[in-house]
């Protein structure tokens, strides 16, 4: 009986993880795409220096950080994938969302600037070791760069 309950909880968490995770992901992607289009005119590039420093009116550090959690379904799916190997599709959307959201947040801090130079990304995983072996983890992506306003 107890094992049946455990199995039931597992299936419930799996279904909940899939439904909630899927809905959240769709919503997030829709929002990401809309905001990306809005901020298309603020470039965030990897060039490190302005050719002529005389052109710069002001510059400041901007950063955007985001933490996206795994849902239960993705965790189980990724664990299954680990047996066979191959692309872990379940995690790909997660890091993709985190990366793009971090860029958007960075751009938000750079509001008013003409360009964000020297854009960098850093990533780390959070929570996998904190709550035991089977804990649901999360991924953090930090985007940072130098916001620059040119002299007009």
């Amino acid at each position, binding site marked *: 009986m107890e*094992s049946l309950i455990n199995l039931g909880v597992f299936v419930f968490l799996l279904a909940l993880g899939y439904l909630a995770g899927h809905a959240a992901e769709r919503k997030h992607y829709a929002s990401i795409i809309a905001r990306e289009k809005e901020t298309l*005119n603020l*470039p965030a590039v990897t060039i490190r220096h302005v050719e002529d420093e005389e052109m710069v009116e002001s510059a400041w550090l901007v950063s955007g950080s985001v933490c996206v959690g795994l849902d239960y379904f993705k965790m189980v*799916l990724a664990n299954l*994938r680990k*047996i066979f190997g191959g692309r872990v*599709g379940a995690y790909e959307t997660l*890091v993709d969302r985190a990366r793009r959201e971090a860029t958007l947040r960075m751009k938000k801090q750079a509001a008013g600037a003409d360009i964000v130079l020297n854009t960098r990304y850093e990533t780390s995983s959070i929570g996998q070791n904190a709550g035991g072996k089977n804990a649901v983890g999360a991924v953090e992506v930090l985007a940072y760069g130098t916001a620059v306003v040119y002299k007009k």
Partner: protein
Amino acid sequence: MKYTPKHFEENVNVEKTSPLREFFLLLFGVIGALIVLYMALGMVAGFVAARLPVSTEERLFGFFDEKFLISEKKPNASQIELQKLLDRLTALTPQKRYEEYNAILICGDEVNAAALPGGNIIIYEGLLKQAESENEIALVLAHELGHFSNRDHLRGLGRILALFALSAVVTGSSSSVTEYLGSMTVGAEMRFSQKQEYAADDYGFELVSKLYGGSAGTSDFFDRASSKDSKNPLVLFFRTHPASKKRADRIKKRITDEKIPQIEKTPAPAALKNPDCK
């Protein structure tokens, strides 16, 4: 350098397969591989079981006697009566596989009995309470003796060990899957094939008819169990034993075909009717 605003419509960083499809594909892959491995291990277990000498068996599974069974065996009246009945049956067996056979009463409502290595038969309190005559209890014991005679108990145990080992390797020994499997097999519900059960039924039936000189009570137990079977189709599906009605019918057919005399049932001793489980 000129900056060109560009929005990518296609996302190259994300795989386009459906996660649900991927999940079921992987899940069936794992299950399929495990089934193949399990069947292979089962075959190996069967092969070994048919050839395992008794001395090796006792060495391998000696821990059953020491750790599990001796502590369960309390020298009370029920236990003694059960052993007496088993001794009467083993006295009639043509070939003795073990030097001594042990009957062990396990307290619990489960209606079950099982043959364990080393000539040990466990029988649950729940089963004794259900039995209405001594003949029925004798049939259950004789049925388990049949499993010993055919070495089914070793095959079953080999498969259970294989299943445990597999599950522990794949999901970790403390995982809920392993626990789930464990709780399913604890109570020693070893899964025998229908053929094995029928063979044990035949063996048991012959032995009990010999002991009492007649067929009384031999199909009663299955008759009662089959009326329970029909209530819940899931019970039928998950049962380790084939449908009880079929088994009762087989025995009844033998009684008429072989003209085995119907005799008076022997009432079960009080100590077995109300097992001492304190």
